[in-house]
């Protein structure tokens, strides 16, 4: 039983075929990487999966349920969360607030509760704050809880993005270049985190350029080039695939 099934997904922008007939299946609890040269359509693929972009063709199924064309907030509620390549933090909010906001879909408090401030409201707010601190601790950010997020160093901002995504309590996590701009220590930290999340039952799909990460933790690698899937398989197979080497040769892919 596959968690995510993508069938013949295409996204055209006018004449440009950003994503063309891409199909793949993701098993629950797996870690999959999507790689490919810049402009291969990876982020566009993520945008379609999360409802930010409307696909031109194809279907997306989450746990056998058709989620094609649903708006982003609905997809979050169904259990898919993502981070962004260009960080989209709520800049004026503090680090803690960013994570509390992200629990929006898991909280129930409504208008009346907010005004009356009954015990149910207060306990829910308190729990949200505590849970937020837990997520921050998981990503090593609890020391910066009150800092306005625009003041965070770049690496911390990326980690906050992940913390926010986790706060929505997803079953499938889409990470768009989570280690971009990180030093080797931070990168290992992220790799460990993804593996820890796997043990907690989460499924991860990540876009990455850092081959150390890709080869280090992926069970499956999907390769995109010019919007088309040109290879799919375990790391060993992909490493030796001639098409892949041709596509990535000379591009900015890191090698260990």
């Amino acid at each position: 039983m596959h968690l995510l099934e993508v069938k013949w997904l295409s996204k055209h922008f006018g004449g440009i075929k950003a994503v063309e007939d891409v199909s793949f299946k993701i098993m629950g609890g797996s870690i999959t990487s999507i790689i490919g040269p810049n402009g291969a359509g990876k982020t566009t693929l993520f945008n379609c999966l999360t409802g930010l972009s409307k696909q031109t063709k194809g279907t997306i199924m989450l746990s056998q349920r058709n989620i094609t064309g649903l708006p982003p907030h609905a997809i979050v509620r169904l259990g898919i969360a993502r981070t962004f390549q260009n960080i989209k933090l709520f800049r004026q909010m503090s680090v803690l607030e960013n994570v509390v906001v992200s629990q929006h879909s898991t909280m129930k408090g409504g208008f009346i509760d907010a005004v009356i401030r009954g015990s149910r409201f207060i306990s829910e707010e308190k729990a949200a704050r505590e849970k937020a601190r837990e997520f921050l601790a998981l990503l090593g950010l609890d020391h910066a809880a009150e800092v306005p997020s625009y003041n965070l160093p770049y690496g911390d901002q990326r980690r906050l993005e992940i913390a926010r995504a986790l706060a929505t309590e997803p079953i499938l996590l889409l990470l768009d270049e989570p280690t971009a701009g990180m030093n080797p220590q931070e990168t290992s930290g992220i790799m460990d985190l993804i593996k820890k999340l796997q043990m907690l039952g989460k499924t991860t799909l990540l876009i990455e350029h850092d081959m150390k990460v890709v080869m280090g933790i992926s069970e499956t690698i999907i390769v995109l080039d010019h919007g088309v899937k040109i290879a799919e398989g375990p790391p060993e197979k992909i490493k030796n695939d001639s098409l892949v080497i041709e596509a990535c040769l000379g591009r900015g892919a890191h090698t260990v």
Partner: protein
Amino acid sequence: MSDVVRGLSIALWFSLLFLPFSGFRNVFILFAVLSSYAVIISSIKRYGNPLKEKFQSVRRVVDIGVRPVRFKPLIFCATMLLLLCFPLLVGDYILDVAILTGIYSILALGLNVMVGFTGLLNLGYAAFYAIGAYGYALLNVKAGFGFWQSLPCCLVITAAAGCILAVPALRLKGDYLAIVTLGFGEIVRLVLNNWDSLTGGPNGITGIAPPYLLGTSMAALNRYYYVTLGAVTVTYIVISRIRMSRIGRAWVAIREDEIGASSMGISTIWYKLYAFAFGSFWAGLAGALFAAKMRFISPESFTFMESVLILSMVILGGLGSSEGAILGALILVMLPEVLREIQLYRMLALGTGLILIMIFRPQGFIGGLRSGT
């Protein structure tokens, strides 16, 4: 030396620009003023570096802004005590101004929900103010309903108008949204001005009854003051509480990054609609209070300038801060009253003020761009 020359040439430039309109005498005065200013500034630049440091450090302290977070309940109680005793301390004229300040506070608080919390620029807020006012006026004069009976109706109608405006507004980005709200405001005013049979056209509606409580009229200034005070308090408390909740956080998230917000599970369409409805709701309250106080309303009170005035209050106090909105209302209502002699120049000052605030201190007095947890 070149600084002074530059300053003088700028002074000359402006004087020449104003020449066709003002005539030679005024222009000479203007040139004299601007030149002296230019000379003073250049001298400060050349000789006054330590002075500049001192000025900067003062600025830094002011920049930190007012943050009475720890003492909030204390300050709130003290303020409430003062406000409750207010009618015993001041005369009728000031009481009248205070009531007006209260009404504008409600308007500023409501607009702050849309503009400050959610980032939806509304240039036609006076339309909701008008709908609330005319709603009560019509229900009272034409259908005979009392204030407290009409109020729920007014509020619902105004909030519904907010939803109607939200429909085109939901999919538009910043500038276009602003223009649509402006258009909405103008259309409402035009309808009020021309639909003579319903609204009385430019003559407006007269003979509006004041609210009655337990059989007594609340029209007397000190009684009406308490009605207004009650309304402002309710508005402030409800808005503050909604702000410090999941709903308020969702609004701020939308303001900060709409795509990010929707990717965190917030339905931007629903919450923007919510902001419109909730924000306009309070304008309805203010409108009804205004109509009940003045006993007469006309479309002249609900122009674009009115919308700009309310927006200025929100900006002055600091976008996103409820306390700032009230402060802004206080300043912009009290100042013209206090400085009656220069009443003529008040719009000129407002225009200049807006430009200066945007350039030098866009976060307003209290600087309210912090969200709430």
